[in-house]
């Protein structure tokens, strides 16, 4: 069941299969995911009945997934972080420079995580201590850290082909038993770990409490300032790790890397079922939501639809996925929505 501390709207409990299914965390979005995969298997069997397309998803989606998981907690706390694309660029630069200048990718890994933590710490401090809204802070730091990455790198890209086949490559981007990409396993491990943090650890409880009501959380004894700083720092560290996964997989550092991840990662979180208002979050939903976002364009292309149709079809599938999710997850919300648009009177 998705974690929900809100007491604003009383839950409507109707008998039947759908409400019972809705208690299982992320089931609606898993359903959407399965429907999509089955649809693609029928529409494009050559592609979706073979392993290479899944191999491709398992190598390209993990960096976005790691970001989306971190973002899930940030959104759960009623905050937002729009600076993570720049974390990919800045932390990726730190990793790259350690490899190319010092010949130490392991030091690069530590530097990337530390760089991400620094970005998160700055964000969290400005939000929690200074009191600037997170959307404003992270828009600003998004520009700043992207600029810092460009200045430090001179805007140049780095080829890191020498990493191919090394220990760090095999650990973070190799294939287990020759078929399972390591970055997918890392992303899965992080998802499981973060699920426990969110659902079984005091920190996760505090995050949801803060998302539900900062004032009540403060009165209840939660150190809102400290927890918010920890939250953004965690997001930064995950961004740093995503940068390492992305850079090692590509065997290249691009000073602009990550700029295409902003909307897809946010979309993964929101279609997964995490509430934009905070207080409710689902790691399982984010997991499958991100995979849906990551496979949608490739799936539509595989069906043979090409040219300008691809984006339009993607939009339709995206909205349909959200609506289906809403129907299964929150029938009460759907009934309320129907009432607003007047559909109930027609029934």
């Amino acid at each position, binding site marked *: 069941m998705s974690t929900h501390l809100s007491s604003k709207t009383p839950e409507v409990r109707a008998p039947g299969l759908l409400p019972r299914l809705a208690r299982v965390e992320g089931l609606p979005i898993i359903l959407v995911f399965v429907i999509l995969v089955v649809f693609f298997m029928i529409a494009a069997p050559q592609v979706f009945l073979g392993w290479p397309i899944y191999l491709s998803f398992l190598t390209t989606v993990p960096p976005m997934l790691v970001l989306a998981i971190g973002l899930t907690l940030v959104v759960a706390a009623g905050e937002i972080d729009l600076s993570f694309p720049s974390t990919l660029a800045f932390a990726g630069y730190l990793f790259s420079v350690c490899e190319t200048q010092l010949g130490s990718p392991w030091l690069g890994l530590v530097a990337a995580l530390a760089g991400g933590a620094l970005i998160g710490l700055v964000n969290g401090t400005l939000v929690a201590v200074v009191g600037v809204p997170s959307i404003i802070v992270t828009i600003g730091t998004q520009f700043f850290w992207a600029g810092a990455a460009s200045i430090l790198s001179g805007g140049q*890209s780095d080829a890191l082909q020498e990493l191919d086949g090394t220990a760090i490559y095999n650990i973070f981007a190799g294939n287990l038993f020759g078929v399972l990409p390591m970055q997918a396993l890392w992303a899965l491990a992080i998802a499981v770990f973060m699920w426990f943090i969110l659902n079984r650890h005091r920190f996760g409880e505090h995050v949801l409490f803060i998302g539900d009501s900062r004032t009540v959380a403060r009165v209840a004894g939660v150190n809102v300032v400290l927890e918010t700083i920890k939250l953004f720092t965690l997001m930064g560290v995950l961004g740093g790790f995503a940068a390492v996964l992305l850079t090692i997989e590509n065997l290249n550092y691009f000073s*602009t890397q990550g700029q295409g991840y902003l909307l897809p990662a946010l979309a993964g979180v929101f279609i997964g079922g995490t509430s934009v208002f905070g207080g409710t979050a689902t790691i399982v939903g984010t997991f499958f939501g991100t995979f849906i976002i990551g496979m949608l364009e490739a799936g539509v292309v595989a069906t043979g639809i090409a040219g300008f149709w691809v984006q339009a079809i993607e939009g339709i599938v995206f909205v349909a996925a959200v609506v289906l999710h809403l129907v299964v997850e929150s029938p009460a919300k759907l009934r309320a929505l129907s009432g607003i648009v007047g559909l109930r009177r027609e029934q």
Partner: protein
Amino acid sequence: MTKTKLLATAGLLALGWTAAAQATQPTTSGPLGAGMTMYMQMGGNPGDGATLARQTGAADAAHAFGIKVIEQFSAWNPETMLDQFRQAMAARPTCIGITGHPGDAAFDPLIAQAEKEGTLVTVGNTPLPVAEATYGAKGTGYAGVDLYIGGEITAQAMLAAGLKSGDEALEYGVFNETTRSQSDRGLRDTLVKAGVKVTELNISPQVDSDSSLAVPILVAFLESHPHLKGIGTQHGGVTGFIPQALRQVGKQPGQIIVGGIDLAPSTIAGLQQKYITATLDQQLYLQGFLPVTQCVLSARYHFAGLNINTGAGVETPSTIDSLIPLIKRGIR
């Protein structure tokens, strides 16, 4: 010293003095562009594979002519280019160098205003034919590839590498921008004329911003088209990620004929591994150096605009190694 030697020495000195007196003198005592300022649109992002050499060329020209060049980066966004033009105009520079992606219709009123205020405008990378025709006499030139011809050159390299009539090919490009799309159309049309069955796939805004997102899309296309023989693109970022997609579907180097553009590090690696068959070399350095030269010469001596095609041809696995030292210095 004998009288003869004295006469010979005096003769040589006289000749030297005459020669020195006859050497052409420069028209200015200082650099030709001293006191001038140029705002210049570089196109993409600072240092990326399709931008760095242009920056280097502009910087070298600025150094040579003593003109101050102010760089503007747009991530290839046409709206940003128009905004940057307005910002540049507000600074009243000597010249503005623009990339023509928004097209003549969008740029025309802005250029007219700039010319009215005495600012020279010159174009690079993507042409503006109307602007050139209207303001060419005042110094509006073009330094860049003829986009359509650039696409043709890439396609011809693919055909020369073995792509033939009846083969299936993918053209993965930007088809929804009036001017920028010309290169992809040139590539597509040339392949179609040769009898190749071409499928067009439009590059999404996300892939346009971060080309690594192209990999699963290319994998899906390759898997759904098992008889595919060629992939063409005129997107510099996407070119570099085609080898990754080919490896993921188990294709060997050379099995798919790949025609791309520009010389990003990943593209160079793809050429060396022979996954990329040919890539259009726009000689971006010239697209930086020549607009600055145009600005200085037109502002100083009222020279008319020059139209220079900077795209000489393609780089292939057999030609790339000799260019690598220059690429590492941001020159090629």
